[in-house]
């Protein structure tokens, strides 16, 4: 997301960096570049103008101080970063919980924005934090929206209140009201009300949304908007604000290449913060929106904070503790542990997504996008095709066992061989660690023995290069110079 915006801004800023001294005309050029980049990203014109004005005045005001400073481009960069954070809404806001449960969250938005999917994601997000949400199916318009919510609810283990089958029949207001009463009686501490999508100009449906609002008295109304939306977004958002009203914005489909500029506009013009972003088709592809991190991402500075959090979420759980206590008891690292670690890794999300959050990650987005996440799956398949005995003691793996495993996993025998070999190395490494040593080049937390190309990421230097550096210098100065250059 925001990638093309990042690229355009990156272009503008690197040309700024190439200047020794920055003049006011350089600032004008940069501003013009950013102007075009923002328009192409669907940011509303009024917001673009305001943003540019902000950067221009601040940069020009800071210019006298710049002249003596060393890193002038960096100073402009920081001004832009600060302005972006301002536009994006300063601080992340959390959902306000009701003093007397249940906390009621109502979703509103255009058709196809992704409300029903989002309802599931929200429910999962809060359930994972120990809440007891219930979903209420008040979208009685779209055919089988109710069924969709039921399927979603079932897959995440969250109950769904759906007395009406929908498909254009039934009273959405009554469903919502009964849903709250039901939640109270079953002591759910949170209710998420999914409503029908509606156009900003549709007075009847807007009236229905208002009636639902008045019936359930929500603690938060979230306006769900597609990141790909265009210039009309601001008008639509305003219509919703004037109609049903909303307290926060949720951006969906942020995993595409949409630049999400309209979201900037909505947050800025309606003065309602962006609270969550949804970044994929899996129900766990969902996160709190942090303006600072987003600004960093737009400017290509990476989002290490989010990456670290996700790693923690996936890895700090029981498995690490279990592994530790296992070692303490003097047991060996087995293929079963290896499998568990792999599964924890894949829980963190796709490799490409994680690498994209690294500083400079945006620049190699294209290579990252085609990184093969299937490698983890294939490795898992091989391990899962082994018997418990084989997993505990790979030494028993003779030729015929390997052939059987390869057949079971649908891979070549050579892949089984290389996995076993890599695992052997990993096991050795783990033994060294247990005996107090730290093997070189092992990042903490990452499972050892990952398939080549995974784990350390595409950005890490190839080991071949490292070896080359250690090569002894030639006694011949000319040859040495050649070596060093090469």
């Amino acid at each position, binding site marked *: 997301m925001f990638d093309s915006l990042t690229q355009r801004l990156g272009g503008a800023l690197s040309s700024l960096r190439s200047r020794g001294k920055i003049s006011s005309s350089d600032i004008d050029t940069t501003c013009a570049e950013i102007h075009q980049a923002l328009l*192409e990203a669907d940011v509303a014109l009024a917001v673009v103008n305001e943003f540019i004005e902000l950067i221009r005045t601040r940069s020009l005001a800071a210019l006298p101080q710049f002249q003596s400073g060393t890193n002038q481009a960096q100073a402009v960069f920081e001004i832009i970063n600060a302005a972006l954070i301002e536009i994006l809404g300063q601080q992340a806001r959390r959902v306000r919980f009701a003093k007397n449960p249940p906390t009621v969250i109502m979703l509103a938005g255009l058709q196809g924005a992704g409300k029903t999917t989002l309802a599931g994601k929200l429910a999962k997000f809060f359930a994972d934090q120990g809440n007891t949400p219930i979903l209420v199916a008040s979208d009685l318009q779209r*055919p089988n929206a109710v069924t969709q919510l039921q399927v979603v609810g079932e897959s995440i283990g969250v109950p769904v209140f759906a007395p009406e089958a929908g498909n254009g029949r039934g009273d959405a207001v009554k469903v919502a009201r009964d849903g709250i009463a039901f939640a109270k009686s079953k002591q759910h501490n949170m209710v998420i009300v999914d409503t029908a999508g509606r156009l900003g100009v549709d007075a009847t449906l807007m009236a229905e949304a208002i009636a639902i609002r008045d019936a359930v008295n929500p603690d938060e109304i979230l306006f769900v908007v597609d990141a790909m939306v265009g*210039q009309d977004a601001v008008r639509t958002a305003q219509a919703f604000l004037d109609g049903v009203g909303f307290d926060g914005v949720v951006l969906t*489909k942020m995993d595409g290449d949409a630049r999400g500029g*309209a979201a900037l506009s909505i947050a800025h013009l309606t003065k309602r913060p962006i609270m969550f972003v949804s970044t994929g088709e899996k129900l766990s592809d969902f996160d709190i929106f942090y303006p600072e991190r987003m600004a960093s991402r737009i400017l290509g500075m990476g989002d290490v904070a989010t990456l670290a959090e996700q790693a923690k979420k996936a890895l700090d759980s029981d498995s690490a503790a279990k592994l530790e206590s296992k070692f303490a008891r003097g047991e060996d690292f087995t293929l079963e542990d290896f499998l568990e670690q792999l599964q924890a890794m894949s829980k963190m999300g796709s490799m490409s997504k994680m690498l994209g959050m690294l500083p400079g990650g945006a620049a190699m987005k294209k290579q990252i996008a085609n990184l093969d996440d299937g490698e983890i799956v294939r490795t898992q398949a091989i391990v899962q095709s082994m018997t418990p005995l084989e997993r505990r003691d790979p030494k028993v793996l003779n030729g015929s066992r390997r052939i059987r495993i390869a057949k079971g996993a649908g891979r070549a025998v050579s892949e089984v061989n290389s996995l076993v070999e890599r695992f052997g190395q990993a096991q050795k490494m783990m033994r060294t660690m247990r005996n107090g040593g730290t093997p070189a080049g092992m990042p903490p937390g990452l499972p050892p023995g990952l398939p080549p190309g995974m784990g350390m990421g595409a950005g890490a230097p190839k080991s071949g290069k490292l070896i080359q550096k250690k090569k002894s210098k030639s006694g011949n100065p000319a040859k040495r110079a050649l070596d060093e250059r090469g």
Partner: protein
Amino acid sequence: MGLFGKIIAKIKGTADASTADWDELEVALLEADLGPTLSSEVTAAARAARAENAADAISQILRASLSSKSREILRTDSGPCAILIVGVNGTGKTTSAAKLAHYFAKQDAKVLLVAADTFRAAAVEQLRTWGERLDIDVAFGGDKADPASVVFDGAQQSMARQDDFLIIDTAGRLHTKDDLVAELGKVKRVVEKVMPVREILLVLDATTGQNGLAQGKVFAQAVDVTGIIITKLDGSAKGGIALAIEKALDIPVKFVGTGESIKDFAPFDPDIYIQGLL
């Protein structure tokens, strides 16, 4: 009065329109999602044509930027005409597939719908509900079935029934997911084992911004899109991105969806659309 009426009237009224007036026109074009490039082109052309002819000049350049390809969907003489419905998530593919089926059925054509969106929860049921309401047969597979197998069965059924049209609703996919876009190619190839695919229609939400161009490019590259369906044109969005796509990719808009009712669907008429804009 359309979107630009007020501004055009203003430009007309002044003997010598000021830069500010032209800027206002450009802003209006931008706000219709025509994009910065097309907007400035149109403004420049209108400006060159002098103020009194601004309306004509704008309508002319807009028309010139449209694709010259046919907007018809051809009935084939022998065997069903297969139509693949593709697009990103939430643009209205399933609804459009149903509307399109109804549109043909009204013309006494024999239609089969295929529910190949086996990914989104309840998408198959959504299409089947439409099928029941409209009395149109829907071919579908088991839960989480492979879309290619559902499509293959559907195509064979359609061939046996000697339908006029076979309309295939596929799962929404973001154009940035290479593997999912590649899967569309597979779906197409599978149909082609049974019959040629005549039309691949990209469903585009009228509220989409400049990202629509990226969508159009990727889908066109992957499966050779033959036409566009613009949906949700009944809102305040003008769908100007469709013009930008027609110009950049030479893919004609073939249908428009203008509401939630099954009747709110019609072939795209460029004249009416441009008149509506002006």
